């Protein structure tokens, strides 16, 4: 089945699920076409949809456009598990530039429907034992190449994709929190109660690349903004930083782009020249996030 075909099908399923399109699929597509033709005539049935720039809007079913970002859950689930072929995403965090602006944390929390105490990325104040000062260290999920969280999950709800991203399927997660216990970087957070603005998101189709809507009783964590990567954009945190802390890119191409300056540099050179390191390499988790030490860097 071609992608376009699948898309079309998904819309039909979506409408059927809402119980608007009647019993047959034919009727479903008829309604859809009708809706496209006279977009002025409202049917009175409203649905909430997520637009391409991630705003939640309410539209009349009759006004649904083929380009709207409503898709079938099954399609999103398949796509989310498969990943983006040929890519190996990496992040480089230049600690020397971090001034604790916390714009990354804010952008992340609002994109992912998180409460203030829930962090996909957390800027920590760390002690520098050598110079007796402290420095700020943003800590997202490390997207380990040997992820302990994935090994322990009993239901394959958290998994590693071909492009290196570790995701969560909160439609499958049973909430055992074994992954929380297993992650040595404390990168995971749990929906202990009803998520923020749960009602507003009640009818949004779940996209595991964004991990929204959040669900009570399931785990959440940084997804490297897989939904943004899919449309060729940089992650939320990376583009939000005013201080040029983050580089993001593809290790296969050996290129990373700075989220603030938009300058693209060679990954290997950046790492070599700045004595990059990963967090707790001795654990053997093989992180995909590199850190440049907290000193004035040449980059």
């Amino acid at each position, binding site marked *: 089945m071609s992608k376009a075909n699948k898309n079309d099908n998904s819309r039909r399923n979506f409408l059927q699920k809402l119980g608007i399109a009647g019993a047959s699929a034919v009727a479903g597509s008829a309604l859809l076409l009708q809706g496209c033709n006279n977009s002025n005539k409202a049917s009175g049935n409203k649905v909430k949809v997520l637009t391409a720039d991630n705003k939640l809007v309410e539209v009349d079913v009759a006004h649904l456009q083929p380009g709207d970002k409503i898709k079938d859950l099954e399609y999103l689930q398949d796509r989310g598990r498969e990943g983006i072929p040929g890519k190996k995403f990496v992040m480089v965090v230049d600690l020397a530039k971090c001034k604790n602006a916390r714009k990354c944390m804010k952008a992340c929390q609002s994109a992912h429907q998180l409460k203030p*105490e829930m962090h996909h990325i957390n800027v920590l104040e760390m002690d520098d034992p050598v110079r007796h000062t402290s420095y700020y260290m943003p800590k997202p999920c490390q997207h380990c190449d040997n992820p302990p969280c994935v090994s322990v999950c*009993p239901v394959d709800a958290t998994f590693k994709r071909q492009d290196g991203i570790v995701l969560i399927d909160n439609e499958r997660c049973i*909430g055992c929190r*074994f992954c929380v216990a*297993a992650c040595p970087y*404390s990168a995971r957070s749990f*929906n202990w109660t009803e998520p923020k603005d749960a009602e507003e998101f009640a009818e949004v189709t779940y996209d595991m690349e964004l991990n929204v809507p959040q669900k009570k*009783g399931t785990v959440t964590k940084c997804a490297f903004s897989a939904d943004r990567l899919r449309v060729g954009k940089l992650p939320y945190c990376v583009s939000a930083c005013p201080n040029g802390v983050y580089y993001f890119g593809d290790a296969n191409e050996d290129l990373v782009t700075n989220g603030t300056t938009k300058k693209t540099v060679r990954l290997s050179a950046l790492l070599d020249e700045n004595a990059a390191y990963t967090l707790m390499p001795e654990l053997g988790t093989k992180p995909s996030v590199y850190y440049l030490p907290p000193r004035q860097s040449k980059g």
Partner: protein
Amino acid sequence: MNDTITKENLNDDQIDQDLLKNVNWGNKFKLWLAFLSVSLIICLYFYYQQLQHGLGVTGLHDYVSWGIYISNFVFFVATSLIGMLISSVLGLMNVHWVKPLARIAELVAVAFAIVAGLIIITDMGRPDRLLNVFMHGRVQSPIVWDIAVIVTYVAISVLLLYIPLLPDIALCRDKLKNVPKWQQKMYKILALGWSGKTRQFKIMNNYTRILLILIIPIALSIHTVTSWLFAMTLRSGWDSPIFGPYFVSGAFVAGCAAVIITMFFFQRNFKLQKYITTDHFDRMGKLLVLVALVYVYFNINEIIVPGYKANTADAKHVDEMLYGHESLMFWLVQLGGLVIPFLLILFKPMRKPLPLTLISIVVLAGAWFKRVLIVVPTQLSPYYPIQNVPEKWNHYSPTVPEIAITLASFILVLIIMTVLAKLFPVISIWEVKEEMNHNKELA
């Protein structure tokens, strides 16, 4: 040579009468059951709240995401292991004195193992998705191993309780004429047409023997796998290669204590002094000393080895235990719940039924808190600092609903044990008779 059953000459009828006495529905029992049921319902109300509002009703948070539910689960699995030690290991070694205690040990095993399975469900964020474990189960995950072995252990333990019970069920069927109709019917069905033929005994003994052997590796694996839930992670305090044997040895301590307490209540309530004798308590006390000694040895290993290597994260964890935040609980548990009881039981007067039971209660409580000490403090010292979260996430204290739900598990165990003890004789009648006749022949 066998002085655990009193020398007093008991004839078969007398034995039947004594040991079937507990199978009835007296008022005292009804009151007790009503009390338990009401308490259970109150506790279940809190579980309903948890289902409604999520695990947020507990004291758990992102840093201590496993709390007393998981500790309690480990405790229950531990306690249930005693069935294997008493009826299987000692039984197969032909240790005569434990024979009358085997059924009590199996009762404890079955009740605790079943409830352990339920406790794990109360800890799930999405219990409605339980079936996912069967639909999407991944063999790499220790949780899947745990579920598999626990289910097997419950099944074999139930069989081990049931099969040797056959002759006694038949006895109930034949002798108990004034019990309710449904109960008579139940005996008839459960007795599977038992008529006491030699051939039947032979089959029964064969099956029991196979099960007794089978249960040893299964029991060892349930607790070893449970310990792996922790040991397989990279956290200091959990990441330990001796966690398996450490857990198993601790399990026997908790289990022995639970059996002693149960023995005491059965003996007093059902007037079984002739069958569960002071000598039984004395020997169980000695068994407790033995298993506690092994456990102390493992405890020393767990503390000294990481404590000696002074610069690792493990050492920080040990420090925290010995002198830090957890030290009060740590020393109470280690000294009050293990070392002091152990020293006391070395003295014979302390192995009399009442003192031994009291000591066992302390040991059991210590064993419970010990599990909390294994589960919680490790999570409070993660590799990266706890920041930008509410202050209370630096600690963990269970909430009322959490405690109530945990209490529910104990109430459920009591309900299972009392109901079973009211339906069936708690001491194997046919084995006691066999033992008697055997002794007479020797005399």
